[in-house]
């Protein structure tokens, strides 16, 4: 059974995925689509036929996105750059947050008698578990939220509002403060020898990151290419 509203919803999310159209643009196009469907149905066409013809007349999502991008290229660019900055910040935040937790964990186990290399290994394990957790969360959010109108609207508002700048500022302050405070705190808790041994394992942590990040990047790129070609196939 052909569900008109469901099909229109799908059509909307195809348009939204292009990211060059504002929500109000999509609303306007939908209003046009519905009007056309209505008039075609008066000509005794079925829901399905009317929808297909009206969508065809309106133009393919790719073509519409291209045309809209021509007039709104600056806002589209700003939107993408905001996303890139958000991505970089999220990455920094995730790594530094994991280091913060790692150090807190070190303190927790060192007062229970684990020292030196053992400490470093525990820290490495914590780091990897945290990285996994962050990745899982990202994938989860990506799947759940990114396709919904409300989330896209929210990010668009976020990208254009001052909240975004304030967040960056607060993050920078917290980040630079923690860079100074954390080593001092750790050094006070551990003896110099222990600190040195743990630092050796931290170096291995960096190695783990530098191997995993390119792998993750490649996986994400493959996924993006695959989803891109799938969308053009359904066209």
């Amino acid at each position, binding site marked *: 059974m052909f569900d008109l509203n469901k099909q229109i919803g799908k059509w909307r999310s195809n348009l939204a995925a292009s990211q060059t159209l504002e929500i*109000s*643009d999509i*609303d*306007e*196009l939908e*209003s*046009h689509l*519905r*009007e*056309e469907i209505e008039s075609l149905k008066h000509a005794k066409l079925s829901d399905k036929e009317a929808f297909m013809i009206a969508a065809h*007349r*309106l*133009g393919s999502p790719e*073509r*519409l996105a291209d*045309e*809209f991008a*021509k*007039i*709104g290229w600056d806002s589209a660019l700003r939107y993408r750059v905001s996303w890139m900055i958000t991505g970089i910040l999220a990455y920094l935040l995730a790594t530094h947050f994991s280091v913060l937790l790692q150090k807190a964990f070190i303190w927790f186990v060192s007062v229970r008698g684990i020292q030196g290399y053992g400490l470093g290994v525990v820290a490495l394990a914590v780091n990897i578990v945290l990285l996994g957790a962050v990745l899982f969360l990202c994938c989860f959010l990506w799947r759940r939220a990114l396709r919904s109108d409300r989330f896209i609207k929210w990010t668009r508002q976020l990208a254009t509002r001052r909240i975004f700048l304030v967040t960056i500022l607060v993050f920078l302050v917290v980040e630079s403060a923690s860079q100074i405070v954390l080593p001092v705190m750790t050094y006070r808790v551990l003896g110099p020898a222990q600190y040195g041994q743990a630092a050796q394992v931290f170096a291995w942590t960096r190695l783990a990151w530098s191997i995993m990040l390119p792998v993750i990047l490649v996986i994400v790129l493959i996924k993006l290419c695959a989803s891109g070609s799938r969308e053009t196939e359904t066209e």
Partner: protein
Amino acid sequence: MAVSKDLIAASATPLILSILSEGESYGYAIIKRVHELSGGQLQWTDGMLYPVLHRLERQKLIQSRWRESDIGRKRKYYKIKESGIKALKEHQSQWEVVYSTLTQLWERKPCLT
């Protein structure tokens, strides 16, 4: 006969401004009006109208607002502004130049010799 893409693109702005100078309207109605006036020979891909409308709005030649129609459908209505009327006059004189030049060339002149 279908009008070429280039000509459609070039005539979009004066067409839209002219239709809006008749009164407030919305995308679907503008396309129907163009279709009706040209006898279906000006074939716009429907979706291409909206980027043009938005560009004109950015250039402050027209203004828009969401309004509910009499039958309860939400539509975005466009209205021409003072500067839009000025721009339309400019377009009009340009098109008249093109039109008169072409007609002079195409007119079959009587041969006097």
